[in-house]
């Protein structure tokens, strides 16, 4: 577990580093990649006002302006559920279609999805163990690439919620062994307590053995001899 970099385990390398360190002049020349993804917000794309938004959704919370592929969008919550509307004309974009979900995954995935097969499924009421159920519904995109990466794209927020690959899955499995909790992966359990107490006692005897074997070889012989 210690050999594998934890950021790699967490699939951070699956996501493209955002190329947003530059200034606007640079971005104006090069603000698109192969998928025509705009990396920066532009005031020209922002014509639906926050007033209009609040009139239509008076209970909107957590309002933010972000990008969804080539669009500038408002993302906000109403009654705990995300909504996306186009910030140019106010058109509701959520829940996103399978095509949009694939494009979102393509634009964020650090590898090349066009050269590998992928499989998309829609999860609406049952989350796999590696995904928290509060994120549902999601588009699950399994990519047939090295280490079997999976991206989960939220149908309502249009964001890549999380990512998994074999290394993380194996790490989780190993962590369950590490803390001896095979259900919740929590270090707070009786089995671990019993085993670590026994291990401590055994190690203490080991320490005594080190003393006699390394520092004081003769005395152990004496003790054994007397038996």
């Amino acid at each position, binding site marked *: 577990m*210690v050999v594998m970099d934890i950021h790699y385990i967490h699939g951070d390398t699956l996501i493209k580093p955002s190329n947003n360190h530059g200034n606007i002049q640079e971005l104006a020349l090069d603000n698109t990649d192969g998928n025509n993804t705009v990396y920066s917000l532009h005031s020209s794309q922002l014509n639906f006002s926050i007033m209009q938004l609040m009139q239509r959704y008076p209970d909107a919370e957590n309002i933010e*302006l972000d990008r969804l592929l080539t669009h500038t969008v408002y993302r906000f919550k109403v009654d705990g559920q995300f909504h996306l509307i186009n910030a140019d004309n106010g058109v509701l974009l959520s829940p996103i279609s399978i095509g949009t979900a694939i494009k979102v995954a393509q634009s964020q995935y650090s590898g090349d999805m066009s050269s590998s097969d992928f499989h998309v499924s829609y999860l609406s009421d049952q989350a796999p163990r590696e995904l928290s159920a509060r994120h549902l519904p999601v588009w699950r995109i399994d990519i047939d690439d090295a280490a079997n990466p999976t991206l989960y794209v939220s149908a309502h927020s249009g964001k890549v919620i999380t990512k998994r690959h074999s290394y993380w899955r194996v790490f989780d499995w190993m962590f369950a062994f590490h803390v001896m909790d095979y259900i919740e992966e929590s*270090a707070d359990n009786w089995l671990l307590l019993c085993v670590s107490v026994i291990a401590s006692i055994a190690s203490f005897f080991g320490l005594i053995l080190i003393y006699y074997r390394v520092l004081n070889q003769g005395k152990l012989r004496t003790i054994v001899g007397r038996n």
Partner: protein
Amino acid sequence: MAAKINRKNVLLDERVSEKAIKKSRKMKLPPLAKIHKWLAVLVFAQVFIWLGTGLFFNLMDHDKARGNQYRAKLLNKEIDVSRLIEPKQVLTQLEQDTNKAVNSIRLIQRVDTPYYLVNHQQGLYKHFVNQYSLVNAYSGEVKLVDDKMAKRIAKQSYNGDGAISQVNRLNPPIDDFLKEQNPVWQVNFDDEVNTSVYIEVGSGRLVGHSNDDKRFVDFFFMLHFMDYGLFGNNRTGGFNHGQSVLFAFLMLLFSITGAVWTVRLWRKGRYKI
């Protein structure tokens, strides 16, 4: 003397042949056991640290370990929508004044005032390097999170009876939050657990609370992860170091030699119940 007793002892064991006696005179332990012995000498201290800290994590109070004894939930006030300036105005202003890219604009609240939090450089996570501007959503003024504002945010997040004793601006690495990569304000309270509240300088985000209980647990994690910051390396709060890799490898060898030795002895019939 020792050799004599040794021989007597060996003779007592009927299973041991004459050949073995000759061998045992030359070499007290078979090579496997010798490797095992010297590996034990190398790893024993860290093994006791691993076991001790592991036991501690098993038994500790998980709520205390979070350092949130006096953490209050930050509550949002109703925003007066009619007073909000348009995000388009903020964006246009920023496009004119600076040449920084804008990734997202979020409507947030800091101590009962709405702000537009403008992201210029986006890290994969909040604790990765991020760059922000904070713009008052009523007046359009650009706000820098100074020590006064940090104090107010910290006070709002704190429900103990300590008073603020000290405010420091810290650059990462930050001892209480080693994973945080952004500069923070550290606001210290003079309560019995020495609560420290951390506020990100760029955004005014509450990074978290820490106190003596959490520091105590962090010390044990440092021992468990071997995150000692030796050999000119900074502490990282993680376990990806040469030291832990080396010791994990030695420990694995130690376990394997021990297991093989056990099986050998068992097959020779040396374990009797």
